[in-house]
């Protein structure tokens, strides 16, 4: 009986004809070119990452949107930057194997953004640690640093999601700003708040920085908040993050609230929240992944700088150039030299204590160095009357003759000084701010970036360092 059944069963076996090649089995094929070879050498072979740049609508999350493919000539420049500023720093800190294990396995590149019905555009998506879709690449220009940083921000953002999806961040993070997450985060943009541009900027920044979020997008939800903080730290650098913190104050309309001596009221709540978020990110990277964030940040910033180098500060400063003015407000800066601060603070207290009949206890709000004329720099001392409205400030201008030789200047006090209003104002405060004036008079300075003093601060702070004393310097925002 068993034998019989076996015979029947054997007799019953069917054979399908499997000789035909199934079309499309094994993936898309095309004649490989130099781009494909580059990708194979730099991504697929070392990291087992596929980089898809040829159009395949099914790779898009939202296949019903009008999106166009990437320009071929941009594929290698973009992927090269991503490799150098994302994979290489991580691999240097954590080893190649870490990247081989945790990087997503596929990139999909597309040329245009994906337009959303709420008016926003999508620049990238990450899918469950497997795939990163980068959009809007056709406008990319490797020489355009903000564009490089935007792509890098997207990369570090999406990779942050992968890390967070593998090991979740502690729930303390989402308890820092629990009530300020909003689905309508995209309503936070410049121009949404006031027709007065200055007020609009203040209100715009107050709507995310002022609430303890590093970007508008980070108000979206706890996960995006976490990875935005991480990616801003890596892509923007330490100086950028500190500068955000140092500029958080309580505003009354257009002006920062302050006491009678001009001491600003800090937004301690937002500062504490942002610093708490940063400390959790740092601890998360250390405890969960054994990554020293500062080390990674330094390497990432160096890689960005290597990718598109910043010209030296002196070549960018002056009439008709990128920068014309350095603004120094010690209440908004940290890291100014003690020697400069001593001169500044002494001048300020002397001015406040001066003759109440003539100067009403004026205080210095900020000073600026204006390089908008050839062979001249104007020291502008912005001072305020504590009894007047905050909108009423005075500028006292002091002109110095300079001769700039490769970024070295000596500031020679000009005589005679002009006699217009701002120079008249200068005569009023001149007797009280001698220490400040003496800091500049006939002193020789190097005009340069101060990234050796404040790391990763190129393009944020420009400074003057005394040639005879490297421990005496000032810098300010541009």
């Amino acid at each position, binding site marked *: 009986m068993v034998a019989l059944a076996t015979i029947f069963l054997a007799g019953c076996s*069917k054979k399908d004809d499997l000789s*035909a090649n199934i079309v499309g089995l094994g993936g898309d094929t*095309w*004649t490989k070119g130099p781009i494909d070879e580059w990708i194979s050498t730099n991504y697929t072979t070392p990291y087992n990452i596929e980089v898809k740049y*040829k159009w*395949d609508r099914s790779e898009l999350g939202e296949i019903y949107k009008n999106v*166009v493919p990437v320009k071929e000539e941009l594929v290698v420049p973009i992927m090269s930057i991503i490799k150098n500023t994302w994979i290489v720093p991580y691999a240097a800190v954590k080893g190649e194997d870490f990247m081989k294990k945790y990087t997503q396995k596929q990139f999909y590149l597309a*040329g245009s953004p994906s337009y959303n019905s709420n008016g926003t555009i999508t620049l990238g998506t990450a899918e469950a640690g497997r795939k990163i879709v980068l959009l809007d690449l056709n406008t990319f220009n490797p020489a355009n640093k903000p564009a490089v940083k935007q792509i890098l921000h997207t990369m570090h953002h999406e990779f942050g999601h992968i890390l967070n999806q593998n090991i979740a961040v502690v729930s303390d993070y989402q308890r820092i700003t629990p009530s300020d997450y909003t689905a309508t985060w995209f309503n936070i943009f410049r121009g949404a708040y006031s027709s007065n541009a200055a007020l609009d900027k203040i209100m715009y920044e107050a709507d995310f920085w002022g609430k303890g979020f590093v970007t508008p997008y980070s108000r979206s939800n706890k996960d995006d908040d976490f990875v935005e903080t991480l990616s801003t730290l890596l892509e923007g650098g330490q100086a950028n993050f500190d500068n955000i913190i140092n500029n958080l104050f309580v505003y009354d309309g257009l002006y920062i609230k302050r006491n009678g001596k001009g001491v600003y009221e800090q937004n301690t709540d937002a500062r504490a929240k942002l610093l708490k978020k940063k400390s959790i990110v740092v601890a998360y990277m250390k405890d969960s992944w054994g990554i020293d964030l500062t080390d990674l940040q330094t390497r990432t910033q160096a890689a960005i700088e290597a990718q598109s180098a910043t010209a030296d500060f002196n070549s960018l400063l002056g009439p008709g150039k990128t920068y014309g003015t350095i603004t120094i407000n010690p209440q908004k800066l940290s890291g100014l030299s003690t020697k400069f601060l001593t001169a500044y603070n002494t001048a300020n207290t002397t001015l406040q204590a001066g003759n109440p009949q003539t100067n009403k206890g004026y205080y210095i709000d900020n000073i600026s160095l204006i390089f908008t004329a050839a062979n001249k720099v104007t020291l502008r001392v912005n001072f305020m009357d504590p009894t007047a409205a905050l909108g009423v400030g005075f500028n006292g201008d002091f002109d110095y003759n300079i001769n700039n030789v490769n970024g070295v200047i000596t500031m020679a006090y000009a005589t005679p000084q002009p006699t217009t209003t701002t120079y008249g104002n200068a005569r009023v405060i001149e007797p009280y701010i001698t220490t400040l004036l003496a800091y500049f008079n006939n002193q020789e300075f190097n005009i340069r970036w101060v990234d050796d003093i404040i790391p990763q601060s190129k393009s944020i702070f420009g400074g003057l360092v005394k040639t005879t004393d490297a421990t005496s310097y000032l810098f300010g925002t541009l």
Partner: protein
Amino acid sequence: MMKKHLLYILLFTLVLGACKKDTTEPVIGNVDDRLSETLTNYQTQLNGAQFGWKGYLLTDNEKPATFLFTFNDKNRTTMSADYRTAPAESSYRLKALQRPTLLFDSYSTLHLLADPTSSVFGGATASGYYSDFEFAFLSSSADTIKLEGTFNKSKLILIRSKSAAESAAIFTALNNVTDAASKIRTYFKRTTIGGIECEVKWDPIAQVLSFSYLESGNLKTVTSNYYVSGPVVALYDPLVIGTTTIKQISDITYDAASFIVNANVNGNPIQIKEAITPLKLDVNAAQRWYNQMFANSNGTWVSDKAFHAGGVDDFCNFKNVAGYQNLWYAGPTVFGGTSEGLIAFVSNALGAPYVLSRNPFGINAGIARFTLGTNAGTFTGTAPIALAMNAARNLLYGGATVGSAQDWYLIPTSDDGKKYDMVRVSDAQAWISWRPR
């Protein structure tokens, strides 16, 4: 015991029955083999064209474009387009999606029309011109391949170029037709197709042809976009007029002596002639036009190109007026009281001189009569605006003196009744297009 045997017999029967093999073979072969073969054939066909393929694209929002493609067997294509003639190389691929599909899979000249970022090449934000770069094969013969965009349903027709000269002339072929079309002096054009008299509307810029004819006393209109391949005006949608189906119009020439365009439809010669009356006048259109003026923004009609007359666009030379934006026919919202008239809009302000019409506005048997009531400002001298307004006044009222009058047809040109063409009744050789402000 017997019961057990019965069961075995039953089982045995079942097994035998279950073992029946299906020996049928698909008579047209294995589906994957056929698909591979189809793709291979398309590939061979595409890269086998020595002089390339002429491509005619009509996007889903009816923007026409002409291309010249060459394909090689290494997934590379070189294309030029009427809007960007410099040849540029990019990649393509044939792929079996739901249908065999031609993918232009890296950014190229063709993608400009589909780019959703309007600052790149115009069109609508998020949509561009509703164009495609993934095209499914609809049909093919040796020299013609018809494709349809899989996303926005735009149409792409590829026609094999037969010579280097044909490829070189691809972007100028349209000009010959456009020239012939624009030589007809009158707004109205007539032809006879299959014994049926038709009014022809021909927009050579948008590449649209339409024929209107009377069917039981009602005006019936059929319209199609077209492309020009060599001497042939080919319609994207075949047009049916009576019992005649038109797929293309060929051998278009202009006879300057008789002011007639000669052409050929389905092997029969046709003549497109000038006409000074519409085939069927919409007798209520003039009144509707007048009433709509009050509903428009600022109570005004606006014309961007001002008057066409005597075969010349912008006959009055408003283009010479610095800051000219458009020409208005406006009512009391602009002029106050019960006044209405013609005035130019220049550098965001209303310009002088201007003309007021006599009230009430005359409409007789569907024909509007403009009578000159008041001249305001200086029409003499050589100031461009004075010259232009003087010419416009002479056209609209048929004269410069108070009381001069001219009759005009009003022809609705949009379904919502908010766009009109106004055509001079006397000879149909002067016209102007109005839109709401």
